[in-house]
């Protein structure tokens, strides 16, 4: 305990130097500004801004990068709420209820709860990392390919639970997402699959490209054909910050979301992506009126946002203690560290305690900065919705194009987004939801990879998934959840037939 306090003290003495506070602030600000560009999520933002930090000393650079990361993450949620374009997989859930709240004139409340929820989650997660970082690392090492596969199966069950409206249609969208995830070079044999001979597709479809097309562009076209719906957003502004009542309603989901997100974030192989989905599923299941979800329920944004941020934070654990990046964002962090001559690994803690604890402390400072920067900005963002739509949407389109181009300096990516815009519009017209598709897409890549690895390691025996206790346990939970999820849905489906 004494050591815990000492460590944190060392960390804060580093993070709270005037220069590092300044860098943290700058990082959060720039991260927010870039992350808020439609469709540009944390990975794109960090990749774009990584070179900016090269001129700074290592500790300062990492503190600034962490700021950029949190800023981008929150910025992504802002666009998800305001214009319904998720910048990354985890903010897909935020679009569900967040954008509905914005349509009801509660954009300010949604943004406020997202900021406060993220802050609470971030603060708790920082303590978790400082206190339990090292022992928690062992958890990550318990997970082999078989365990991950089972975890992803659980994720698919979340996707089913997320579905509203027609269940067959939602499951069909998950299948489309899985199918899209198989596009590209086969992991094991290197053969090209479903690429239509297009070389640019050999690495598969980029998430940002898919999300921007299917969510963003399709939404713009639809808004253009229904002038009424777009003016609904403009007309109502409502209160800018959550009321006490809102906060009371949101606090329990925030705490539950933090717990779920923190645990899933530790798992390498991007377990963090499941956090918001798991939180949403949980909140919907325990809610008194599950029908409110998808229609602007505050719990539907508070929980997932908290889970998102907690996971974003604990995802640092495998990186800081093991030196192994669990996801693409953390892989970029490794790059940032190596360019400063610090090679992340188990020895960073002992060899470079100031950097290690300074970074952990700066996580909390970063979360505080986010709150300070974003609560005043809420008013600004909401006022953006007041801009006449006929000016707003060409601007969104231009920002999207620049963002997508900049991710990989590739014009073919821009053309692919246009294609997915067409697909997304068609899906809307056919009454399909895009959210399950995106989740299927994200899980699909991981699932196939882990399935095939597990089968290679077990030399083709499927028993490996049930024989290994952690894997078997996860599959059991998934099966139970599926049954619970399907029963009311089938019943509700019948009810709907009667009301129509």
């Amino acid at each position: 305990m004494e050591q815990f306090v000492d460590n944190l003290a060392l960390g804060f003495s580093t993070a709270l130097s005037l220069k590092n506070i300044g860098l943290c602030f700058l990082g959060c600000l720039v991260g927010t500004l870039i992350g808020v560009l439609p469709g540009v999520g944390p990975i794109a933002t960090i990749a774009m801004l990584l070179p900016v930090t090269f001129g700074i000393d290592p500790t300062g650079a990492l503190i600034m990068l962490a700021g950029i990361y949190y800023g981008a993450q929150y910025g992504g949620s802002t666009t998800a709420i305001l214009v319904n374009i998720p910048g990354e997989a985890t903010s897909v859930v935020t679009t569900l209820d967040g954008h509905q709240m914005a349509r009801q004139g509660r954009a300010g409340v949604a943004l406020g709860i997202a900021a406060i929820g993220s802050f609470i989650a971030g603060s708790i997660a920082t303590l978790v990392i400082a206190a339990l970082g090292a022992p928690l690392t062992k958890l990550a090492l318990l997970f082999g390919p078989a365990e991950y596969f089972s975890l992803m199966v659980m994720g698919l069950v979340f996707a089913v639970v997320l579905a509203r409206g027609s269940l067959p249609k939602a499951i069909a969208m998950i299948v489309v997402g899985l199918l899209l995830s198989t596009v590209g070079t086969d992991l094991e044999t290197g053969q090209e699959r479903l690429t239509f001979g297009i070389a640019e597709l050999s690495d598969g479809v980029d998430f940002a490209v898919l999300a921007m097309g299917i969510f963003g562009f399709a939404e713009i076209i639809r808004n253009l054909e229904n002038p009424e719906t777009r003016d609904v957003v403009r007309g109502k502004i409502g209160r800018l910050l959550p009321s006490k009542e809102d906060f009371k309603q949101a606090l329990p989901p925030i705490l539950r979301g933090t717990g779920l997100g923190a645990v899933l974030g530790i798992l390498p192989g991007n377990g963090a992506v499941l956090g918001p989905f798991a939180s949403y599923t949980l909140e919907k299941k325990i809610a008194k009126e599950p029908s409110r979800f998808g229609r602007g329920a505050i719990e539907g944004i508070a929980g997932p946002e908290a889970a998102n941020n907690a996971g974003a934070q604990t995802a640092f654990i495998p990186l800081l203690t093991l030196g192994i990046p669990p996801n693409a964002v953390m892989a970029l962090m490794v790059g940032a560290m190596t360019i400063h001559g610090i090679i992340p690994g188990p020895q960073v803690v002992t060899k470079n305690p100031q950097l290690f604890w300074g970074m952990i402390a700066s996580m909390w400072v970063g979360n505080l900065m986010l709150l300070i920067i974003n609560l005043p900005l809420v008013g600004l963002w909401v006022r953006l919705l007041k801009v006449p739509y006929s000016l707003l949407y060409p601007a969104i389109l231009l920002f999207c194009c620049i963002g997508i181009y900049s991710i990989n300096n590739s014009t073919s990516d821009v053309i692919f987004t246009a294609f997915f815009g067409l697909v997304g519009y068609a899906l809307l017209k056919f009454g399909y939801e895009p959210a399950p598709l995106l989740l299927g897409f994200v899980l699909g890549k991981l699932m196939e990879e882990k399935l095939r690895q597990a089968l290679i390691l077990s030399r083709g025996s499927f028993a490996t998934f049930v024989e290994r206790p952690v894997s078997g346990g996860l599959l059991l939970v998934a099966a139970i959840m599926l049954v619970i999820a399907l029963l009311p849905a089938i019943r509700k489906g019948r009810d709907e037939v009667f009301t129509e």
Partner: protein
Amino acid sequence: MKSILSALGLAAVLAAGPAWAQSYPAKPITMIVPFAAGGPTDVIARIVADSMSKTLGQQIVVENVAGAGGTTGTTRAAQSAPDGYTIMMGHMGTHGAAPALYPNLKYDPTKDFEPIGMAAGTPILIVAKKNFPAKDLKEFLAKAKADGDKINEAHAGIGSVSHTTCLLLNAQAGLKPTQVPFRGTGPALNDLVSGQVDFMCDQIVNLVEQIKGGNIKAYAIATPERSPALPDVPTTKEAGLPEYQVSAWNAVFAPKGAPKDITAKLNDALGKALSDENTRKRLLDLGAVLPDKAGQTQEALGTFVAQEVARWTPVIKAAGAVAQ
């Protein structure tokens, strides 16, 4: 790419006009890195570009064009104007293994580029999970050979450095392990640390901290001399597999047809970067190996690329690995 001023508009048109007449370089140079920001090649490219910019008096802007094992960015570099304002950081994969891996490759590493010079190589290590029952390379090879496909090798995806360098090891040492593909070094390393897989080959920068921390064990480093970063790890020569010499090298290229005086100027700037105290230190801290004076010439790189293509083609073809 032109200067910011001219980009901003009309006022600068006058200034930008006569710029063409000035000697090279009159505007920022783009260096294409065919991998994502933050990877080993990107890090080396940025350190080198930083120093070269100072010598040339113009900014070298790094442009990451990742995709298809680096061949997307390399294709773009091969097809860009040979005016010296677009250069690239090539790599063992893009300029060595790619012709064998990608039958539909749109460039020829030996014919479509002007070699500028070798930048830095990162040595390859043979590592295994920490409780693998072999105390040195000889024992490891004997056990791996005896176990055949019962042993699991991890690699970071078809065509990755860890994949191709292990193919070479397997061919030279007569191993036939079961290959487990991962998406990137991180996940592969994770499963090596947790003992799900038995061994892998990869660049020192990815492994050094895990070895020092005792999470995995290193059997040999595939360079002629030991690395100062890991002085206890024997070379493959010392450990009994002298023919296994391989490094993930990175070198600067310009598109074919770039004028001689320009490529010479770039080669000179690269050479100055490699003799700059600070730049050297930053590269050596990564565990990188720098070329000696003889290895820094344009001719040396040209010959080396031809050798590399000739070396990787049979290894990859024999393994039946094709990425397209």
